[in-house]
């Protein structure tokens, strides 16, 4: 047991280092672009004087390194832009302030995260169910019709762009069949039913796309597992086929599936850009895209770092879960 504690400590320490390096890299990249965010906040007519004022207020007139250090300090101490009655305060932990939106980046992310999380988690449950069951069915019927069908579905899923499938789904379910709303998001706390009803189509679309890789992975893993000696042992003990397949076969295939699942989910929580755009949902992905359009560098940096953090975190969780799922893995 001390092994796992030490493992997590080591990994968290590594995470901090990676995030530091990453934030520096992101900072250097985004603040090196020639466009000047101050332009957008300078108003019209934008005299050089007013521009300089805006730059000073937004603290863009300092060197990039100084700005980065301000950013780091802001995380712990918060930041204040300008002074006097016009001053803007960004409380700790401050990950930047969006002047075009007039709100701290942390608040923006906190507002948008539930939308993205709703899309991602719901879809994840669906694609896991679809992918794993079709994968198992394909493996058990290797070479037969059901196998070919499942693999076919997987192929279509992998090769279809999400916006195409999304638009088709809106067209079919929303307009022709008029079954579901075509866009918008209702918070879960307001009405769970409406929440789900609005999300059904994006869930299905994302799930079908993602399930593809799970079908293929599950199929391959199951074929391998079912060939192992301990499967024969299970049969020799008198276990029925269902028990052999699920308790003994699927149990062994679980580790790589869970690994992929964790990483996919971690990635998706950082923003399902295309899906959010197609279904007009105000999630993290949508936030990022509009921020890029408005040269809102603070938001771009904030969301990018947040997504990166989620992926690193997902990796850590996956590794810990891996240890829990496979008794042979030791976190030494």
């Amino acid at each position: 047991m001390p092994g796992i504690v030490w493992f997590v400590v080591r990994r968290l320490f590594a995470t901090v280092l990676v995030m530091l390096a990453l934030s520096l890299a992101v900072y250097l990249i985004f603040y090196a672009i020639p466009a000047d965010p101050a332009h957008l906040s300078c108003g019209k007519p934008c005299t050089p004087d007013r521009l300089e004022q805006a730059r000073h207020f937004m603290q863009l007139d300092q060197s990039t390194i100084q700005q980065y250090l301000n950013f780091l300090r802001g995380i712990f101490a918060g930041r204040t832009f300008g002074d006097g009655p016009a001053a803007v305060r960004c409380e700790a932990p401050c990950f930047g302030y969006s002047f075009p939106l007039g709100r701290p980046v942390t608040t923006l992310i906190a507002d948008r995260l539930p939308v993205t999380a709703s899309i991602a988690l719901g879809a994840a449950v669906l694609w896991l169910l679809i992918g794993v069951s079709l994968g198992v069915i394909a493996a058990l019927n290797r070479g037969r019709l059901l196998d070919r069908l499942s693999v076919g579905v997987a192929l279509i899923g992998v090769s279809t762009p999400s916006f195409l499938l999304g638009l088709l789904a809106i067209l079919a379910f929303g307009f022709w069949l008029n079954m579901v709303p075509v866009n918008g998001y209702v918070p879960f706390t307001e009405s769970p039913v409406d929440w789900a009803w609005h999300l059904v189509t994006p869930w299905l679309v994302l799930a079908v796309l993602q399930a593809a890789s799970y079908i293929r992975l599950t199929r391959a893993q199951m074929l391998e597992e079912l060939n192992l000696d301990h499967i024969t042992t299970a049969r020799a003990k008198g276990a029925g086929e269902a028990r052999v397949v699920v308790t003994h076969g699927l149990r062994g295939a679980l580790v790589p599936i869970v690994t992929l699942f964790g990483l996919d989910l971690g990635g998706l929580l950082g923003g399902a850009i295309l899906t959010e755009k197609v279904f007009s949902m105000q999630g993290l992905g949508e936030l990022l895209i509009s921020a890029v359009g408005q040269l809102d560098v603070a938001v771009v940096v904030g969301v990018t770092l947040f997504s990166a953090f989620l992926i690193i975190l997902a990796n850590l969780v996956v590794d810990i879960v891996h240890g829990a799922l496979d008794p042979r893995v030791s976190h030494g």
Partner: protein
Amino acid sequence: MTEELLRLDGVRKYFGLRGVPWQAAQAVRAVDGVSFVVRKGETVGLVGESGSGKSTLARVATRLLDPTAGRVEIGGKDVTRVRGRRLRPVRRRVQMVFQDPQASLNPRQSVGTILSTPFRAQGTRPTRTQLVELLHQVGLSEEHLERYPHEFSGGQRQRIGIARALAVSPDLLICDEPVSALDVSVQAQVLNLLADLRDELGLSYVVVAHDLAVVRQVAGRVAVMYLGTIVEEGPSDQVYNAPAHPYTKALLSAVPVPEPGAVRERIVLTGDVPTPIAPPSGCPFRTRCYRAEDVCATERPVLQPVAGQTEHLAACYFPEPPTSERT
């Protein structure tokens, strides 16, 4: 005294284990102080059960592994610290034959390419005649040169493995479990081949094996390993007929004899071999030994001649008394 081909002096090989910082680092003591000499013309058997360190010792002796401590001499030269390119002359004298010919032959190379590799590693190019000659030595023929490993049976593959080792005309072959992956009928062919090559080419062997009967068949001298140390060493006849170390005695008594109704005294050892991470104090065998007394836990016994013998050594405080010849 004939020429020494291989001399190991106090060789140790520890494999480190990564731990947590608040615990002391641990090491697997795979080989824990072994001294050992092979002279020209000899076949020495190295027997032991899994975890005894015999394969690790073979790899240290061929300098495939670096020893943690001790000295490795090949042909009278200290090669303990020799590395990389400068190992070439060492490789020319000592070659290794591996257990699993399936795993040790590159499946994408033809036999011809496999056999040329040792030549090229020495900076020469073999002629076709040389390659065919090698195949003949191991009982294969010219037509096999263009074939690939999967086209051969297990026994033939092991012959290819031997031919590859012979390519550089070594003095000493270290064979790690050369027949344990083979069927009985094929195993005998390979053992006979090793004997023939010894006579024809004047080769010497170290044969590492867990099968005591195989070692008795080929080796003139035998060393018995337990938990990283040699517990008994001597001429095969003496060790097999009158084992002095209790472990050797138990090991020999456990080997079933293909003779129904044969009455033999069997010493069934209890428990498992202790972990090489924390071997017992003193004699490594004392925890399972039927003769152990308090003194065995104090100092590790050193190899010393058995009463009345000169070349038969045992590392034991209470060696078995020499018995009359058993048959």
